[in-house]
């Protein structure tokens, strides 16, 4: 049985845990990272810098892109034709924001903004893995990565959307975007009624991550993703802020 003795930042030992086992994954993760650093594959500083970059990512820039497009028709037109250029105006540079200066290795540099209309609703999946527009939307949710979502959304989109609480009339075209190559997608939903005269900040507040994936639509007063069970981590990510 493995025990890990840790002190918190004040030098206090927590009460001895019942069983605090280190998992096989944690052992392997440390082994891989230490060996990679020892062999000069990357430096400890590289790893820290990448982790810090990931901590900066979240859905706010994408929400602001949508809000901006709602109030500015010229920006909307540009966003739909050139998502990378449109991202610059909400502070996201797909090429240079991250330490590589050639984009992130996994997310590339080809954001496409999918414009919903009253007769067209987009929803995004990556059936082959779980490709996701991290630089503008943050890390993907667990359900998006599941084989279940990846199997079913492309073939039974209306059933899956109904499970997320979204039902659309038959005359609305539902278009599933399967991001299987280098393009990454966000959905530009239809601006809901009841938001006339709102500021961009107010509009951005109702564009949740789920709206940007396409499994929800924005609603006045709804500023968070739908409540779902959260599987807890055994040793969750430390946040140094």
């Amino acid at each position, binding site marked *: 049985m*493995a*025990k*890990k003795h840790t002190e918190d930042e004040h030098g206090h030992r927590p009460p001895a845990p019942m069983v605090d086992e280190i*998992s096989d*994954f*944690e*052992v*392997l*993760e*440390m*082994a*891989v*990272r*230490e*060996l*990679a650093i020892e*062999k000069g*594959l*990357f430096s400890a500083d*590289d*790893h820290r810098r*990448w*982790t810090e970059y*990931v901590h900066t990512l979240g859905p706010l820039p994408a929400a602001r892109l949508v809000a901006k497009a709602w109030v500015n028709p010229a920006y909307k037109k540009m966003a739909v034709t050139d998502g990378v250029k449109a991202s610059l105006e909400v502070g996201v540079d797909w090429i240079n924001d991250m*330490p*590589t200066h050639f984009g*992130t*290795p*996994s997310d*590339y540099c080809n954001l496409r903004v999918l414009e919903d209309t009253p007769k067209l609703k987009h929803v995004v*999946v990556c*059936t*082959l*893995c779980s490709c996701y527009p991290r630089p503008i939307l943050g*890390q993907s949710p*667990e*359900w998006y*990565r*599941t*084989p*279940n979502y*990846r*199997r*079913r959304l*492309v*073939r039974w989109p209306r*059933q899956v959307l109904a*499970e997320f609480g979204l039902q659309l009339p038959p005359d609305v075209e539902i278009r599933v975007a*399967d991001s299987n190559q280098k393009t990454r997608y966000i959905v530009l939903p239809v601006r809901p009624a009841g938001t006339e005269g709102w500021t961009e900040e107010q509009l951005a507040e109702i564009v949740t991550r789920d709206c940007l994936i396409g499994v929800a639509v924005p609603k006045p007063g709804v500023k968070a993703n739908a409540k*779902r*069970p*959260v*599987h*807890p*981590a*055994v*040793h*969750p*990510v*430390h946040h140094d802020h």
Partner: protein
Amino acid sequence: MSSRKQLMKHYQLVGQLQPALHAPQHAPYPDTIDHALYRAYTRSAHDIGGEPDVPITWEEKEEEQWELNTFATCECLAWRGIWNAEERRRRQNVDLGQTQYLGLPYYGRWLMTAALIMVDKQYVTLTELVNKIDEVKKRYE
């Protein structure tokens, strides 16, 4: 009497009980493999769009520190030119094989793949990797 919670768990368990038809002979004779079986056995494990599956409860998950570390390791390996992301996906989502593809956790696959690339490209010997894993394990005994 079982609680409602235990009853719901029971449903989940019985949903996983399925008959299995095991082939009596592993490594079958080639003339017993038709086109359909060949395609099934040589399929890319990641190509699952359209396969049937059942409704589940959609959940969020809190990220483990080791998972974030793994993600950063994989991106750093690509940043510093050990591999590109497409090589990673090929290895992680297809080469790994059908059983590990469905049996391992999502980031478990990222991690195994990062370990193997170092050995495959001769940056590390398997001996070195095994010894390092052993050394790390011993720190927690």
